[in-house]
């Protein structure tokens, strides 16, 4: 066990801190994705290697060798300084790695640099109303008509559809092939005629997602990534890449601390709620779970560094992390009694109503990105080596 990062990383951390101190004023604070300040900040981050760090220089990245600890130090220091780490989004996190892996040279040239610079925003078109857990049953079709694909169908859970310039989209191009083999990975512009975007209001009251409808949307033939019919493999190639943990332990720690503070401030009949033994016991129970998950996360990080096996430890983080967050937000509501109900424009809200908002949002995350049931199937089959359910008579 060695929980220090070592001297060479201490030096690197100093460099990051120096950069942040010198450049803080240039960082956007609440400015939008398209704002000049955000775009120039993104450019500066890439120049210094704090964004697009491992993307080759030839495509507009910084060109550094992958180093997990450096990435983590960057994330830690930016978070500590509360300074934007530049643009995120599915274009940078998902499409760019995909293109690097299976794109043609022309596609890499065309798409990666503007995506990294924030000049080209993307949304993702995977899920459909009828294809959620069973994503491979998707039905949005693309039929070749001369030099163009004609796309018809509907996508859902498209989070930045209203902002995006382009979409990367799974479509069925071979209707007679087995369900995993008839899918292609298609790129097209969101201003193409025939695309309708409807905001999808969710239980929080916000429209965090959209529905996107395609009616005879015409897409140039060469905008397929990978081979026609290989879309399932293309999409899964990046699902294997590192994704942000949905149960981010640092965010959970911040919420835990905020809850402990809240319990010191709020009172019931003059008694601070932290002094209410039953609420305090619930808080401590969650702290214990949280610590176990934090150390589990350290273990996963370390295993990636040292090529050790921690696959089961990694497999459970989404399931456990989202459940813990949901429970933590729920405790905050409970301790507040009636005040826990304040929402919307209610001036009695505590912490901007974030407890109720996150309580619902994390229920969404428990479901999204693979429901708990799908997670448990994966844990039992891949983690514990248990058999799959037997195939059914009529299964396709």
């Amino acid at each position, binding site marked *: 066990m060695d929980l220090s990062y070592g001297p060479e990383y201490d030096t690197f951390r100093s460099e990051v801190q120096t950069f942040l101190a010198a450049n803080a004023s240039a960082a956007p604070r609440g400015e939008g994705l398209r704002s000049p300040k955000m775009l120039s900040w993104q450019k500066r981050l890439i120049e210094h290697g704090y964004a697009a760090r491992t993307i080759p220089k030839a495509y507009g990245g910084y060109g550094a060798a992958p180093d997990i600890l450096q990435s983590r130090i960057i994330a830690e220091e930016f978070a500590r300084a509360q300074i934007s780490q530049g643009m995120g989004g599915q274009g940078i996190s998902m499409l760019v790695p995909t293109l690097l892996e299976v794109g043609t040279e022309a596609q890499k040239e065309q798409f990666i640099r503007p995506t990294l610079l924030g000049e080209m925003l993307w949304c993702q078109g995977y899920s459909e109303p009828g294809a959620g857990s069973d994503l491979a*049953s998707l039905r949005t079709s693309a039929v070749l008509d001369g030099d163009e694909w004609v796309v018809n169908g509907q996508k859902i859970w498209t989070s930045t559809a209203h902002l995006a310039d382009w979409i990367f989209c799974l479509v069925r191009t071979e209707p007679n092939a087995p369900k995993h083999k008839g899918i292609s990975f298609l790129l097209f512009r969101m201003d193409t005629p025939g695309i309708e975007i409807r905001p999808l209001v969710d239980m929080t009251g916000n429209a965090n997602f959209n529905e996107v409808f395609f009616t005879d949307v015409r897409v140039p033939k060469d905008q397929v990534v990978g081979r026609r019919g290989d879309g399932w493999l293309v999409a899964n190639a990046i699902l294997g890449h590192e994704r942000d943990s949905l149960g981010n332990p640092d965010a959970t720690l911040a919420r835990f601390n905020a809850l402990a503070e809240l319990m010191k401030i709020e009172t019931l009949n003059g008694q601070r709620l932290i002094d209410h033994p039953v609420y305090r016991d619930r808080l401590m129970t969650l702290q214990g779970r949280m610590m176990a998950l934090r150390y589990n996360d350290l273990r996963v990080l370390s295993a990636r560094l040292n090529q050790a096996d921690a696959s089961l430890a990694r497999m459970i983080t989404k399931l456990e992390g989202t459940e813990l967050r949901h429970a933590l937000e729920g405790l905050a*509501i409970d301790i507040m009694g009636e005040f826990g*109900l304040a929402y919307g424009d*209610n*001036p009695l809200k505590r912490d901007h109503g974030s407890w109720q908002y996150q309580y*619902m949002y994390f229920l969404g995350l428990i479901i999204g990105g693979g429901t708990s049931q799908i997670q448990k199937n994966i844990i039992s089959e891949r983690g514990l080596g248990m058999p799959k359910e037997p195939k059914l008579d009529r*299964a396709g």
Partner: protein
Amino acid sequence: MEFGLSREQTLLTDSVARFLSKEAPLDRVRRFATEGDDRDIWAGLAELGVPALLVPESAGGVGLGCLDAALIAEQLGYRATPSPFLGTGVALPLAARWGGRIGDELLAAVAAGERRVGVALANAVGRRADATLSSAGGRLDGIVHFAMDAGADDYLVATDTGALYLVAADAPGLSIKAFDTIDRSRRTAELHFAGVTGSLVGDDPALVARLLDALRVMLAADTLGAAQQMLDQSVAYAKQREQFNRPIATFQAVKHMCADMAAALEPCRAMIWYAGHALDHMPDEAHLVACHTKAHVAEVGKAVAKTSTEVHGGMGFTDLVGLHYWFKRVGYNRQMLGTPEMMRLEAARAQGLAA
């Protein structure tokens, strides 16, 4: 021995259920969420006798009991119905029945659905933040956060020490700030009192305590209805939704989630019946049972609300199916008039197991 509903109770419940299903479906609830108007619903319920249910026959009411009221509350929860039932249909007539000074004229107007009464007892449950309400010489000063059934003509309010007053909404010195909670099927407001003249309904804290028990059972009954709705929708959705070439209702994980909900929820029905009955007929037990009913049904409701949303997958998270109206209704019922931890402490006190 009959532990169950009478024919009359079944008929009453069915008539309310039919009315709500026809006249107050989810779209109507959605309209309330933006417009805040439930007058047509309350008028329809008045035709069925709902506001008159607990009003004595001598004052133009039906003179039924708390169990009957709980059955109505369950139906209102089942449809997430906006209505001033808790204050108008329950708190006011019970205050009169249990010895509070309420004029027959007001009771008659309430029974006819012509006058609405909100209820603001939070300070007698437990003071939070700057909540405080005191009376001196019949004049009220202070704040009650979270009055229920706001938008009423009058409010029943409890002081910190458990005296009960009736106050007109337009009384000088009273300011009413309507505000949002998560539950947009209800109207909630903050009441500010600056030397407001109220009419004393009763100064024995036992009256407020008894009203609280009744309202807690009603909130629990509302949760029973809401959770039953969520379970019903889960079963229906699971039968119709297909993934991996089969209805998800054929997956054992989904079936067991539904079974877990049913197993936890079904005993809550008997508990509500017993608690409603006890309010009228078993004074020795009523308080303990009300505390436990409020706490237990809130816990079950919370679990059902989460599980049901999960059974619906992403759809459960959206506004499209509107399942969240019930999720939030259950949340509201849990937080109001005593959280589960507070109720369990109160239950312990009622048995001499806590100071």
